[in-house]
């Protein structure tokens, strides 16, 4: 088959698996897992420097920004003001205008506050940010985010860290059909088959953090996810057989005794 690069706003990516950097044992494990995943895009959070412990390590000493596309996020932000503040700080700290925008509406579900998300997307897009909004599985929201200037749509499969997999494949399919933006399924993937399923439905990429970092063997799971995303994408492009209620025999009747 032809080459199948993921292209977003002129950036080209070979891997369709994006990974987060949270919840690992240490930076070394983080780096090894990312390596095993084959990911090109890596999300990071923005937090205070520990000014009193100068020996504390730096994440970007373990993850080469020259090798990976660093995508800062606004994790932990519950208001538009906070999300804007963190986004603008991350632009100043880093080397790009990319931002994975999270405006969280609820502590227990970590579902996005889509009204705040839309407002923040509009503002940041106007300021020249390349916005990747973490949103819900509502096709209307996806449309509104596209109109607001988002670079992609990142609908959740299930709550962050829940491992439930794709809870609403029908809505996801509708989003995929209706939007012209790249769709990156984000949050809720639990194991390899979930990632493959997301790609089989037609997602352009899948962002996975907890399922890898929280696995008993994160390095092995990172590799599993890498293969799952490749397999799912290839299956999608290969064009599957339809689902049928009844059998269609595989062998000819002609020549039977």
């Amino acid at each position: 088959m032809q080459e199948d690069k993921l292209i977003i706003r002129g950036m080209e990516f070979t891997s369709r698996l994006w990974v987060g950097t949270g919840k690992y044992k240490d930076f070394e494990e983080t780096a090894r897992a990312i390596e095993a995943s084959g990911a090109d895009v890596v999300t990071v959070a923005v937090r205070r420097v520990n000014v009193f412990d100068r020996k504390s390590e730096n994440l970007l000493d373990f993850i080469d920004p020259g090798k990976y596309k660093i995508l800062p996020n606004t994790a932990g932000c519950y208001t538009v003001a906070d999300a804007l503040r963190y986004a603008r700080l991350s632009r100043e700290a880093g080397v790009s205008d990319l931002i994975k925008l999270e405006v969280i509406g609820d502590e227990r579900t970590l579902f996005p506050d889509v009204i705040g998300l839309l407002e923040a997307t509009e503002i940041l897009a106007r300021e020249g940010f390349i916005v990747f909004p973490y949103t819900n599985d509502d096709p209307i929201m996806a449309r509104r985010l596209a109109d607001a200037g988002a670079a992609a749509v990142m609908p959740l499969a299930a709550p962050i860290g829940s491992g439930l997999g794709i809870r609403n494949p029908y809505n996801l399919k509708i989003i995929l059909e209706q939007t012209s933006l790249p769709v990156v399924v984000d949050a809720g993937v639990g194991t390899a088959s979930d990632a493959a399923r997301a790609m089989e439905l037609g997602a352009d990429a899948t962002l996975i953090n907890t399922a890898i970092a929280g696995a008993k063997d994160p390095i092995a799971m990172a590799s599993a996810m890498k293969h799952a995303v490749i397999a799912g994408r290839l299956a999608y492009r290969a064009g599957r057989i339809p689902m049928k209620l009844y059998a269609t025999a595989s062998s000819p009747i002609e020549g039977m005794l």
Partner: protein
Amino acid sequence: MGIGRIPTYDGDTVFLLMTDTMIDETKRLTLNGEPFETGAATLAELLRRLGIAPSGVAVELNLQIIKKDAYEGTRIGNGDSIEIVRFVGGGAHKD
């Protein structure tokens, strides 16, 4: 104020009167949410004293993000609130 001694080229000694602006004055400010004292006069000097390289961090002074090329020229004083942030591990996860 204080008095400093500087030897001259001919071997003579000159006494120099040092004014306030030349001596470290301790400023009480808030750094990353905690009370902090420093003799640094500028953001750049503060970062140097903290051993923090400007690359890879972002600095906010009284809720204004300061561009890196302005660190040298931005003075800090009593009552200022400074935030220094950087990228850390954190994906789509619960803090």
